[in-house]
């Protein structure tokens, strides 16, 4: 297990370094269209071949990884913070406050987000730079993705609230935010981390789906989501295995995070 964990760390390190240094070792600009060679297979010039427009897939994977690895965790962090705020306060206070917060959470979960997102997109200005579109997309994901986690966290805090060590702390005179910060939240760490890591691949996939609706990262900027869109047509799946690289990378990175996380959880 230790060796696997080391491998996970190594992989995460390599992926992070590769993407951060994309400008140094990417063989081409991510937007450069080699129009004489669209959809070409892997070669010396293009290690992972080219996409539909002749853009170097390897370069796009490097730049896309940078964006997704940076933005998806940020969005996951935002949604986990919101979930902690709503779920934590509701679970800690209990009573009418918990009922009201969970009622609001249920309402939030039942909203037709797809249509609301479409409405949001329709309201956004059209002349938006690709970098802004990335920020807007992941901000929306972070703001809208807290509700399911909030329910889990509320249940967790409720359990801790009634635990013996919290009762003892309370009997010792510890109350309010201090009790929450010192005794409750630290014990929620495994749940919080799990919610955080789960949210990352979910947001990456959601970003890909939003792209189909016109809400994702806009061209020509790559992201794992836009790279995964190459696999939309399953008729093309079996012929060009190198198109699976973004998916394989996503699975490896998320798995590595989970492996690393499991150690952290044990430590916690």
């Amino acid at each position, binding site marked *: 297990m230790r060796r696997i964990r080391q491998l996970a760390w190594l992989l995460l390190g390599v992926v992070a370094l590769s993407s951060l240094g994309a400008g140094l070792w990417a063989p081409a600009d991510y*937007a450069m*269209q080699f129009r004489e060679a*669209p959809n070409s297979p892997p070669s010396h010039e293009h290690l992972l071949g080219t996409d539909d427009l002749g853009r170097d897939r390897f370069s796009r994977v490097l730049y896309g990884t940078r964006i997704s690895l940076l933005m998806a965790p940020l969005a996951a962090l935002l949604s986990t913070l919101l979930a902690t705020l709503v779920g934590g306060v509701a679970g800690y206070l209990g009573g009418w406050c918990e009922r009201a917060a969970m009622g609001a959470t249920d309402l939030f979960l039942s909203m037709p987000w797809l249509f609301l997102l479409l409405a949001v997109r*329709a309201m956004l200005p*059209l002349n938006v730079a690709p970098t802004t579109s990335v920020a807007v997309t992941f901000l929306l994901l972070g703001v809208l993705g807290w509700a399911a986690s909030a329910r889990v966290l509320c249940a967790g805090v409720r359990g801790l609230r009634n635990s013996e060590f919290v009762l003892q702390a309370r009997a010792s005179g510890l109350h309010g935010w201090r009790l929450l910060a010192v005794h409750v939240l630290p014990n929620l760490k495994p749940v919080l981390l799990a919610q955080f890591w789960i949210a990352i691949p979910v947001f990456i996939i959601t970003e890909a789906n939003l792209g189909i609706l*016109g809400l994702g990262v806009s*061209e*020509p900027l790559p992201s794992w989501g836009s790279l995964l869109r190459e696999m939309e047509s399953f008729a093309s799946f079996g012929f060009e295995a190198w198109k699976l690289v973004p998916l394989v990378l996503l699975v490896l990175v998320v798995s590595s995070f989970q492996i690393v996380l499991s150690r952290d959880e044990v430590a916690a």
Partner: protein
Amino acid sequence: MRRRAIGVVLSLMFALVAAFGQSGGELKFFVHSDPKTFDPLAVVDDASETIRYLTGGVLLRVNRRTQQAEPELATAWTIARDGRSITFNLRDHIYYSDGSPFSAEDVAYTMQRLMDPALHSPTGDSFRSGSGAVHTKVDSATRVTITFPEPVAGLDKLFDQVAIVSSHSNNKERAALGPFYIADYKPDSYVLLRRNPNYWRRDAAGRQLPYLDSVRLGIQPNRDIEMMSFRRGEIDLINWLDSEYFERLAAQSPGLVHDAGPGLDSEQMWFNQAPNAPIPAYKRAWFRSTNFRRAVSAAINRADLSRVVYGGHAQPAAGPVSPANHFWFNARLRAPAYDPSGALRILQQEGFRLQGTTLLDREGHAVEFSIITNAGNKPRERMATMVQQDLGKIGINVHVVTLDFASLLDRITGSYNYEGALLGMANTDLDPNEQMNLWLSSADNHQWNPRQKSPETAWEAEIDRLMKEQAASLEPVTRKACFDRVQEIAVEQQPFIFLVYKNALSAVSATVANASPVVLRPQTYWNIETLSLRVQTASKH
């Protein structure tokens, strides 16, 4: 000697079978939704149109290969000099699939129903030429005259879409005069058409057509599944393929795919010139500048769009009519040459200047705009991204925005809150009258500046005049001259920047004999009567 004679006879029999196809069998292909109606006069969707084509008997049929009208239920027809009436001589001894006889009364009944405003028939709308009723006079059982309130240009070919319905059959929608009749329908699953036992047409050897026993139209909205079903041999043809699927299929089975050349459909982009559009005045000034539009047009590499986005299965577009439309295509027009340097020169004449890698207008505004297109349409998304790079070379910063179709339509037709758009034009009819709603400045679909009270530019006024003149004229030569000029103005002024004409791509199984795909709809089964299925030892391909 005797053996040799038997051999010769057998060879001749095989040759005859090969020449005329084999009778029997069931042709299978997919439509992409349930038919909205079985009433051939109320057709509004592709699936219903397919059923109308396969089951409906028409007075005349536009031959999809020659694009000329040919006799069907009418043996001959005459259009009056004033263009207001048409007289048909009908075939005798024709029967519907249910055994009821066909007569001129049925034509009168069909026209009465077709023109009934309550039916809201799109086919009927093509015949509306002015206020007043359409009169049908039955001269005899085999002769009928239809009179319209005003002249109708291209009148005869409009009857290609009019399936004659029975005036006295108990099941009017299903009593068919075409090669098949509707035998069964299971929603979300299939429509089964069986051979019309009373179909009138015979082949050269005197055998009754169609050769096929039945046609099964599976209902399958998913194109991936359609492709896989074809590859497994579960369906016999795909009427329309996109270039990506075409290439994949061609790589495996090159003999099964057909590229019939440029079709009628075009892809184009345009700028929003509407005066009430919520866009900055300086941008509206760019978009209203003919030279700006010409420069943008010249900076787009159409050959690359055709080759990269469509894998070579598209042609650079010149104007609104593709070469697929034999009569109305203006052969003098050429697609603008890719010339970024020329584009910059034109822009400099207009006061634009290149500062570093950014193009600035006369007032110092960086030239930057967005192009909207519909999300999920890969070819359009790719074209927009290529246009983005092409225009980047002359310093124009383009933002590609993909929107869901409802939002896109709202911006284009409702709020006018957009700058540029990239969409396609699906042409189903050859006649330019079908494009009146596009070219008249007062029309809703005059996309770049719709619903003008009076033409805002001289060239739009000229287009209005020419379109009305061609619609009022009954002389094909006059009409052609008018519409040729409309096409020339469109190319000179570039209100639409036409990008490519998409090729008509289809796939037909090796089991189907006599298939000869064409560019006009329905591309693969336009000659359904003479299609047949070969017996194959291995049905998979």
